[in-house]
C-alpha cells in the first residue's frame, strides 16, 4: 500500500497550464461532428466537472500526465497519426512475431489508411439488419438515433462520476453503438474493431450497448496486437444496459503501447434475471486504471467478472472490479488474476457492495497474484461492504512468488527456463484466458510467452 500513498494528495496536475483546453475547443469538436445541442451541452457540462474535480486519490501515479499533450489530437483536422518511422521498434517487433499482415499493422500502429474490414463488415451488417440489430459507430448513432442515445448516453456513468469520466464526456470521439432488440440472439460476436473509423482514433471512444429484454450479445473490444498512438492518453468509456432476462458478454484485450496512460471506465446496469459477463485481459499500457462494474439492479440479476492482468517492466496496472448488489437474489462471481514480472506492478482493487434491501445475495470473490521475481510487486485490496445480513459472501486472496520447484520440475523434462516460466504463467492464466474468444486466447498466450523470451506457440 505504501507505494500507492504518493497519489493521495489531490493536486490537479493534469490541467495545470493548459490554456487551450477550454469551452472553445469543446465547441469546435462538437461542431465538427455535427452534433445536436444536447450533446454539445453534455460535453460542456463535462468540461466544467473536469476542470473542477481533483484527480482520483488512489490508483496509478498520473502526475506526469499533461493535458497539453493531447490537445493537438483533439482538434478537428489534427494530424492524428504517426508515421511508420515514429512507431517504436518494440511494437514493430511484436507485429512481426505475431505475424500481423502488413495492412493491419499500419492501422494498429496508428499510421496509414484503415484496414479494409469493409468486406467482412458488409456481410455482418446485412445479417444484423435482418435481426433488427443496430450496430453503428457512436457518432453516427448520435445523429441517427438521438432518442435512444440521449436516453442512455452517460447515464450509467454520469460526467461527474470522476475526473476522467468528465474528461471523456467532454472530448469523447468514436466508439460503437449497439442495440439488440427484444429476444434477439446475435449469432456471432460483434467486434469493436469494425468500427475503427480512422487512424489515431480510439483514444476517447465511447461504447454504448443496449441488450433489450431476453436478448443475447457477445461484444469484443480491442485486439491483442499492440496499439500505438502518438497521444499517450486513452480514456474510453463503456456503458452497457442489460435488460430483463438478457445476457451480455463483454470481452476485452487491452494492449496499448507502453507509453500510454489507460484510464478507462466500464459499467453495466443489469436488470431482473439478466446476466452480465466481463472477460478482460490487460497486458499493455504504462499505467492502467480499470475496474469494470456491474450494478445488479433487478431481482435475480447476475454478474461474472473474469480478469487477467500482466504487468511487465515499467508497468503499473491497477485493475479490478466493482459489483453493486442493489436487489434481492442477485449473485456475482469474481475471478481476478495478475502476474507481475521484470519490475512490473499489478494492483488488484475490488469493491463489493450489498445494499440494505438486497437480501439472499450470493457472491464469491477470488483474487490471485503471481510474482515472477523479487523486483516485481503485487497488491490486492478488496473492499467488501455488506449491509444486509442474509448474504452469502465468499472471499479468497492469494499472493505468491513463482515456485523454483515448479520451474525445476518442468526443466527436468527438457523445457528451458524461459519456457518453463511461460508455461507456469499460462497455466495460472488458463481459467480466464480460456474464456476469451479462441484466437484472442492464443494471441494473449503468445504475448505473455514473448515477455519471457519463450518460443511456446
Amino acid at each position, binding site marked *: 500500500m505504501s507505494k500507492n500513498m504518493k497519489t493521495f494528495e489531490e493536486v490537479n496536475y493534469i490541467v495545470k497550464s493548459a490554456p487551450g483546453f477550454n469551452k472553445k475547443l469543446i465547441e469546435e469538436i462538437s461542431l465538427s461532428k455535427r452534433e445536436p445541442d444536447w450533446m454539445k451541452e453534455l460535453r460542456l457540462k463535462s468540461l466544467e466537472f473536469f476542470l473542477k474535480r481533483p484527480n482520483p486519490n488512489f490508483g496509478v501515479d498520473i502526475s506526469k500526465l499533461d493535458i497539453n499533450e493531447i490537445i493537438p489530437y483533439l482538434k478537428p483536422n489534427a494530424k492524428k497519426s504517426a508515421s511508420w518511422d515514429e512507431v517504436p521498434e518494440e511494437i514493430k517487433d511484436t507485429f512481426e512475431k505475431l505475424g500481423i499482415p502488413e495492412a493491419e499493422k499500419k492501422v494498429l500502429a496508428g499510421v496509414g489508411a484503415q484496414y479494409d474490414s469493409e468486406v467482412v463488415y458488409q456481410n455482418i451488417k446485412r445479417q444484423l439488419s435482418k435481426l433488427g440489430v443496430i450496430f453503428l459507430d457512436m457518432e453516427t448513432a448520435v445523429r441517427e438515433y438521438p432518442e435512444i442515445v440521449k436516453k442512455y448516453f452517460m447515464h450509467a456513468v454520469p460526467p461527474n462520476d470522476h475526473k476522467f469520466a468528465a474528461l471523456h464526456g467532454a472530448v469523447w470521439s468514436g466508439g460503437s453503438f449497439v442495440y439488440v432488440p427484444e429476444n434477439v440472439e446475435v449469432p456471432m460476436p460483434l467486434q469493436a474493431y469494425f468500427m475503427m473509423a480512422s487512424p489515431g482514433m480510439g483514444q476517447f471512444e465511447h461504447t454504448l450497448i443496449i441488450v433489450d429484454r431476453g436478448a443475447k450479445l457477445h461484444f469484443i473490444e480491442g485486439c491483442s496486437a499492440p496499439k500505438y498512438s502518438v497521444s499517450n492518453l486513452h480514456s474510453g468509456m463503456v456503458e452497457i444496459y442489460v435488460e430483463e432476462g438478457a445476457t451480455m458478454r463483454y470481452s476485452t484485450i487491452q494492449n496499448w503501447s507502453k507509453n500510454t496512460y489507460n484510464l478507462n471506465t466500464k459499467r453495466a446496469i443489469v436488470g431482473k434475471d439478466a446476466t452480465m459477463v466481463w472477460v478482460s485481459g490487460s497486458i499493455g499500457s504504462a499505467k492502467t486504471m480499470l475496474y469494470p462494474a456491474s450494478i445488479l439492479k433487478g431481482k435475480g440479476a447476475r454478474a461474472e467478472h473474469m480478469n487477467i492482468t500482466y504487468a511487465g517492466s515499467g508497468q503499473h496496472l491497477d485493475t479490478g472490479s466493482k459489483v453493486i448488489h442493489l436487489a434481492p437474489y442477485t449473485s456475482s462471481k469474481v475471478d481476478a488474476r495478475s502476474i507481475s514480472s521484470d519490475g512490473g506492478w499489478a494492483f488488484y482493487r475490488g469493491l463489493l457492495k450489498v445494499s440494505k434491501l438486497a437480501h439472499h445475495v450470493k457472491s464469491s470473490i477470488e483474487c490471485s497474484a503471481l510474482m515472477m521475481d523479487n523486483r516485481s510487486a503485487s497488491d490486492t485490496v478488496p473492499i467488501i461492504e455488506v449491509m444486509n445480513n442474509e448474504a452469502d459472501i465468499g472471499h479468497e486472496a492469494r499472493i505468491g512468488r513463482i*515456485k*523454483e*520447484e*515448479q520451474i*525445476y*520440475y*518442468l*526443466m*527436468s*523434462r*527438457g*523445457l*528451458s*527456463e524461459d*519456457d*518453463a516460466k511461460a*508455461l*507456469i504463467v*499460462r*497455466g*495460472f*492464466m*488458463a*481459467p480466464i484466458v480460456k474464456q476469451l474468444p479462441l484466437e484472442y486466447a492464443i494471441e494473449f498466450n503468445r504475448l505473455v510467452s514473448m515477455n519471457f523470451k519463450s518460443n*511456446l506457440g
Partner: protein
Amino acid sequence: MALLKISNLHAKVNDKEVIKGLNIEINYGEVHTVMGPNGAGKTTLANLIMGNPKYEITAGEILFDGKNIIGMPVNERAQLGIFQSFQYPEEIPGVTVRNFLKLAYDTIHPNEKMSIFDFGDMLIKMSDQLKIDRSFLDRYINVGFSGGERKKSEILQLNILKPKLAVLDETDSGLDIDALKVVAEGINNVIGPDIGILLITHYQRILDYVKPHFVHVFIDGKIVKTGGPEVAKELEIEGYESFVV
C-alpha cells in the same frame, strides 16, 4: 564407456555437507538400487545428477556418456537423456499432462517431429498398457492427484520420454499393491540395453518385481556397500545399523 560415472562427489545444500565422497558407476542395460536411511542424501544425489541449482558441488566429477555435466543446465541434461522421477512431484495448475508431455517430448526428441495426433495415440496406448486411467492425460499436472497417482504419472512420463538414464526416487513409496505392480511394470517396460536405471527405494518389496543388478547401501552421504540383490535381503533383516562404520 559408463553411462554414468560419479567419482568422489562432495556436495552441500544450505551450507550443510550432505554428499561426502560418493562413487557410483552405471552402465547401459543395468539396474542399480540405492537403499539408505532417511536423510542419508539419496534425493540429494538424484538432484545432483539432474542438476538442481539448489545443491552445490564442492568436489568430484559426474560424467554422463563420458562427458562432465557439472554446471550444465537442467534442461540440457534432460535433452541428453537424464530423467528424474520425483519423490514429491510438483503441481502445475492449468497445464495438462498431455500438453506438457508433448512439449517435453519435442524438446527431448527434436528430430522426431511427431504430430499431436500420433503423440496422442502414443499417450493412450501407453496409458492403457500401464493401466493408467486415460483421464489423467487431460488433468492438470499432479493437481489433486493422490500420492499413488503422482507416482503413476511419473512412470508414464518415463515411458513416454524414453531417457537414457532414469533416476527413480522412491517411485515405489506410498503405493497400494496394485499401484506397485503398475509402477514395477512401468519400470520393467523401459529396462533394456539403451537405458541405465538408478532406483532409490526403502523397500525390499519392489525388488520382488524389478530385478536389480546391483544394490548399494547409502549411509551418511556415501555408498558404504555394494552387492547383488542379496544385500537388500540382508538389510531387510539386519537394518542399517550393521552397515554404519
